[in-house]
């Protein structure tokens, strides 16, 4: 069975459950702090870092403003180079297209290069239903797949797992899907990597069909780009006879010159490396080299919906480096699953509502899954202003009448506060009632959470305005 985020609870409930898992919190804290530190060093190394970020944001905005032209240009180039381009409006259509393409090859065992989009659309489950077994080849994606788990991070999908958990998954599951884990496997990272290497090598060598995503699609030549650390991608992209790349329409960049900007930013910001160990590029098919058949499936699945949101469309600049989640203090405590999507953390908090709309309680809860601390704004390589988008989405939720009780409460406060006399009376009541209020109480209703872990401040006998009125600010 392939697990999915379908029917996931809204953020507060899901997060509360995850926060209570000490092991998980420790795993996520360790992993995010390690990457955070590496990223900070490598970003600081570049004197032109902020200029690169400016360029990256500007390039993406330019593409998004002219997406149709760019995509048609890419289609023309891919087709001219011997590839076939398919357009998918949503997840169901994308899954149907890929399933039919795989079926046509007659293969039932295929390999995958890690791709968040295929996770987003639930491709593995769709293929499984058609009797096709798609095996992940990226180490972290393999850990997630073997463990029948869900991804919790866009760069390191198994970030929530520690070494000993990984060892247990390998020992338990590898044998059921191919070459078993070596006897006496320990949780030494080198041993774990070797076990994965042996298990996966069989898959690369045997598979005739590979499914990938792409980090970029260069419109001027129709070239696809995959950036990775392990070489599994390179293997799949070159060894298979048929390659099917499933790519979100927002991955387009106009030219190679533009690509250069992103390649300088991505690895430094994602994994704290100067350059990713493997950067693979391919254009259609080449006789005698690599796959003989190439399909590009361009997927919308909510992207044009996001594009229609004037404030929110900047979320489509995202290059999935993961820095926002590595930096996020909320993500650090909850891990990725709390967000109920393959896109967690700050980008998940804005992108999911933009892609899916705010109609269900789960997506409507995400814009509130932030303290608005703004740490993500500072690390995003494409300068997404998360706090602006979060606030705008909150306004959309509030306008949509999702929180009638809260609206009434804040409305009352607002009304009182704008009205001087009433406000003065309210302050007076609050301060005279103050000393009667015990500090270790449990507040009723929605406010109860506050007092679960904190006492309330003592309410002073005299308000500031009371003092001012009495003394005219005389501080003698």
């Amino acid at each position: 069975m392939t697990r999915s985020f379908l029917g996931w609870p809204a953020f507060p409930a899901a997060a509360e459950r995850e926060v209570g898992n000490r092991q998980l919190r420790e795993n996520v804290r360790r992993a995010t702090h390690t990457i955070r530190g590496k990223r900070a060093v490598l970003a600081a190394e570049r004197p032109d870092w902020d200029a690169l970020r400016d360029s990256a944001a500007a390039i993406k905005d330019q593409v998004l403003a002219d997406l149709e032209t760019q995509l048609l240009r890419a289609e023309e180039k891919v087709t001219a180079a011997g590839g076939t381009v398919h357009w998918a409006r949503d997840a169901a259509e994308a899954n149907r297209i890929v399933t039919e393409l795989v079926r046509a090859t007659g293969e039932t065992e295929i390999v995958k290069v890690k791709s968040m989009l295929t996770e987003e659309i639930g491709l593995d489950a769709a293929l499984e239903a058609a009797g096709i077994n798609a095996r992940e080849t990226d180490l972290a994606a393999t850990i997630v797949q073997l463990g029948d788990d869900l991804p919790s991070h866009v760069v390191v999908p198994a970030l929530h797992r520690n070494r000993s958990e990984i060892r247990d998954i390998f020992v338990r599951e590898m044998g059921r899907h191919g070459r078993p884990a070596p006897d006496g496997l320990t949780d030494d990272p080198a041993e774990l990597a070797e076990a994965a290497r042996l298990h996966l090598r069989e898959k690369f060598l045997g598979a005739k069909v590979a499914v990938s995503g792409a980090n970029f699609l260069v419109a001027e030549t129709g070239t696809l780009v995959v950036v990775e650390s392990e070489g599994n991608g390179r293997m799949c992209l070159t060894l298979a006879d048929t390659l099917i790349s499933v790519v979100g329409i927002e991955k387009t960049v106009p030219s190679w010159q533009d690509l250069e900007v992103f390649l300088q930013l991505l690895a430094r910001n994602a994994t704290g490396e100067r350059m990713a160990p493997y950067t693979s590029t391919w254009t259609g098919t080449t006789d005698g080299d690599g796959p003989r058949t190439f399909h590009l499936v361009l997927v919308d699945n909510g992207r044009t919906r996001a594009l229609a949101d004037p404030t929110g469309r900047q979320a489509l600049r995202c290059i999935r480096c993961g820095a926002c989640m590595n930096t996020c203090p909320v993500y650090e405590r909850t891990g990725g699953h709390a967000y109920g999507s393959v896109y967690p953390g700050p980008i998940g908090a804005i992108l999911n509502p933009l892609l899916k709309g705010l109609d269900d309680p789960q997506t409507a809860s995400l814009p509130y899954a932030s303290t608005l601390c703004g740490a993500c704004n500072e690390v995003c390589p494409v300068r997404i202003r998360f706090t602006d988008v979060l606030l705008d989405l909150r306004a959309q939720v509030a306008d949509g009448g999702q929180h009638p009780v809260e609206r009434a409460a804040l409305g009352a406060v607002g009304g009182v506060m704008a009205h001087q006399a009433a406000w003065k009376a309210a302050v007076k009541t609050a301060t005279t009632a103050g000393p009667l209020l015990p500090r270790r109480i449990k507040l009723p209703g929605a406010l109860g959470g506050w007092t679960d872990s904190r006492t309330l401040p003592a309410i002073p006998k005299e308000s500031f305005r009371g003092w001012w009125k009495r003394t005219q600010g005389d501080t003698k």
Partner: protein
Amino acid sequence: MMRSMPPNVPRPRTALFVTCLNDTLFPGTGRAAVALLRRLGVEVDFPPGQSCCGQMHFNTGYRKRTAELARHFVDTFGDYEEIVVPSASCAGMPAEAYPLAAAGDPGLARAVAELAPRVVELTEYLTDRLGVEEVGAYFPHRVTYHPTCHSLRATRLGDRPYRLLRAVRGIDFVELPAQEECCGFGGTFSVKNPAVSGAMNGDKARHVLETGASVLAAVDNSCLMNIGGRLDRDGHPVRTVHLVEILARTEQDGPLPGVPVVEEAR
């Protein structure tokens, strides 16, 4: 030494926007702001019509309500040449939030754009407008400082609060580990996501304890209320004090009652 203003130079008309939270729950912060500003020669006024900046409303998504409060803010403070605010997050509202809340109301948008540059957070007012760092303060206690998210990333106070703190006589200032990390308050966040907020706050409180400080300072009482509430619940006697309350104290006031005095200062 404390800098005194030449008596014959007319001061600009300066208003204190005390903020609704300080007005009701932390009046000592407002009193300290008045005392300090007057000591520095600023004749500060308190327009009594003032209410709330609307931050909670804005951050929860209620833009119309925010616009009403923005209108009220403009009406109350429009005549003043400078409006000083002892809260980094509230001080940022006119520049950051009001333009968005005023979208669709050009009159209000204009008024807000005109007023916003005159609204200034208190520590920035001291260092940049008055040009002082040594404000004549005396505070013989071990103090650590939490840079609140708004002061760090929105109002961008930078090292201003540290410069002011380091110039305080008798102070034993210690840096807070992982200081740039959010305390988990986030206004509406602490109510909607109490478990996560509590976990963040717990870590912040732990870092405060690691410093051995008797006093935690910040420029936002909302965050101090959050962290202080946790420290208090766990039985730790660390006091949370707004930065301006430290800056306002002099030798005449002596040490803060009930708080350990640092050795060197005795």
